[in-house]
């Protein structure tokens, strides 16, 4: 058996793959956070809860309506996005112009409500969710065996990230969005419906989180607590990357995921804190984050 730095190669590749998968979720979630923050100036603490809601929506659709994985991939983000739009219209909207900390506190409260309610109804234990039949089994890559579903998650997340990036950088809607981020009043003066844009952005961000949740359901178990523990790590990812750039958020997500996977191989005790340590170092060296600009 071949070894790399004294570690058996399959173990190393395996952990890199796990790191890539975790990184996929870090990237998708920090992307959503960055999009929402860019326009609304709100740190969406409920992002983790929306991710959890996405996974639960898929689970509930399957259990009670017999709707499988593929339709859920579209339905769950739609449902969660709709809930988010209601939240934006009736709650978040009242906080624009105030200190952004209030947005954080409001969404924190919402996260507690969702999480507490689902824990009350479904208990804290995780629920298994089987991957779709087309994506079960494993593939021989020559140097390792890869479960097909895991490969699919990495590919799908790349598509989602690139798609969102294209939407924001290359379309007319994205141009409005970027313009409104720079100067909302001026964009409104040009006849663009900025309040609607804000609502849609929050809905889109939440839908992204829900989509990540559906993708995560077959890998991690569906549990009420799956979101909040993840979102704290994603916060650290966002601090490392800086929220100025969408691409920065994506790249940082994948890189930190892989670094975390590598830590599991070389120094497993530190694997749960490595991202926070990196965050502390980045703050000491480059306070604005790797891709951020000082505000």
């Amino acid at each position, binding site marked *: 058996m071949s070894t790399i730095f004294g570690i058996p190669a399959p173990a190393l590749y395996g952990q890199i793959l796990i790191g890539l998968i975790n990184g996929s979720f870090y990237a998708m979630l920090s992307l959503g956070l960055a999009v929402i923050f860019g326009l609304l100036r709100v740190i969406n603490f409920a992002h983790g809860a929306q991710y959890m809601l996405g996974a639960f929506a898929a689970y509930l659709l399957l259990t009670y309506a017999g709707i499988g994985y593929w339709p859920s991939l579209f339905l769950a983000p739609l449902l969660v996005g709709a809930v988010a739009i209601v939240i934006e219209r009736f709650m978040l909207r009242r906080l624009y112009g105030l*200190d*952004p900390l209030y947005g*954080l506190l*409001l969404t924190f409260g919402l996260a507690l*409500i969702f999480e*507490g309610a689902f824990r009350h109804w479904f208990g804290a234990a995780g629920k298994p969710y089987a991957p779709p039949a087309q994506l079960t089994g494993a593939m021989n890559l020559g140097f390792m065996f890869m479960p097909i579903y895991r490969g699919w998650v990495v590919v799908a997340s790349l598509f989602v990230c690139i798609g969102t990036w294209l939407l924001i950088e290359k379309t007319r809607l994205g141009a409005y969005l970027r313009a409104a981020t720079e100067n909302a009043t001026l964009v409104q003066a040009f006849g663009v419906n900025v309040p609607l844009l804000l609502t849609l952005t929050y809905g889109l961000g939440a839908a992204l989180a829900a989509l990540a949740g559906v993708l995560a359901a077959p890998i991690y178990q569906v549990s009420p607590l799956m979101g909040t523990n993840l979102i*704290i790590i994603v916060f650290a990812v966002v*601090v490392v990357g800086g929220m100025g750039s969408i691409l920065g958020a994506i790249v940082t997500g994948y890189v930190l995921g892989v670094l975390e996977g590598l830590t599991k191989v070389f120094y497993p*005790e530190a694997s749960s804190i490595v991202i926070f340590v990196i965050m502390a170092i980045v703050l000491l060296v480059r306070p604005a984050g790797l891709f951020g600009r000082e505000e």
Partner: protein
Amino acid sequence: MAVGTQYLAEQQPKLSTTSLVLGAIAIAALIAAPFFFYPVFLMSILCFALFACAFNLLIGYVGLLSFGHAAFFGGAAYYTAHAVKVWGLEPLTGILFGAAGAAAMGLIIGFIAIRRQGIYFAMITLALSQMFAFICLQVPFTHGEDGIQGVPRGHLLGIIDLNQPLSMYYVTLAIFLFGVFAVWRIVNSPFGNILKAIRENERRAVSLGYRVDRYKLGAFVMSAALAGLAGGTKAIVFQFATLTDVQWQMSGEVILMTLLGGIGTMIGPIVGAGLVIALQNYLASSQFPVTVLIGIIFVICVLLFRRGIVGEILELMKRKPKGNV
């Protein structure tokens, strides 16, 4: 614009006669309270009220929202519990050791976190405290999921037996009063005025020649030490220290207590802590999930009364004379 901005006008540099009388009545009530209520319940309120006051020192007077204060509260509980149980330290020395440990952590976490402001500061403190929670789960002295249990209350200074509920209560009350007085003294000192200046307009404070980062770090360490004082006391009162106290939910709870009572008011956090603990106590026997209720109170506070209960009352009192003129 800082969260506490709109409350500046409410702070009074000196104690008026009214507040002195009210304070005396409140202290008398606290002294009499254990004859009417269950002492452990009261001590729990006192510990959390001090914790909330320590937290308020930062959000209310420097405008920094720390989302990681559980690290100082729960960390100090671990240090005190370990010092008293394993090293056999006298309880008060143990509590002070816990507070000193929290202050040291405050120095490290504060040094990193004050490099960013506002929303980033909140995210960084949250992440660092989560890191501390992971460390607590892994290092041997905290005993992982079990926590440190069976911490002896011992004899205060070798004389007063803290196993007597009443003596434990009065010691807790004394620590609480000391902590609140310390916060009041800090806020109404020249140092506190500079903190408020930083909250109002950081750039102007810089241009006036103040080393803003040092003041922020100083306030952060003091806040951490006082939170640690509360956490260490809690470890002696309840005779255990567990992971619950270092987790992000605890940081959220102390934010809620302060927000509900009134950010930037002296007694708001105390009122908020009393209400939240009483609610949790009341709900513990019912089926209703506490987390959901805490979330709902959060949403209502943020949407409807951002000044908190005490803040809104002060605002009403301020408005009345204006209406007559």
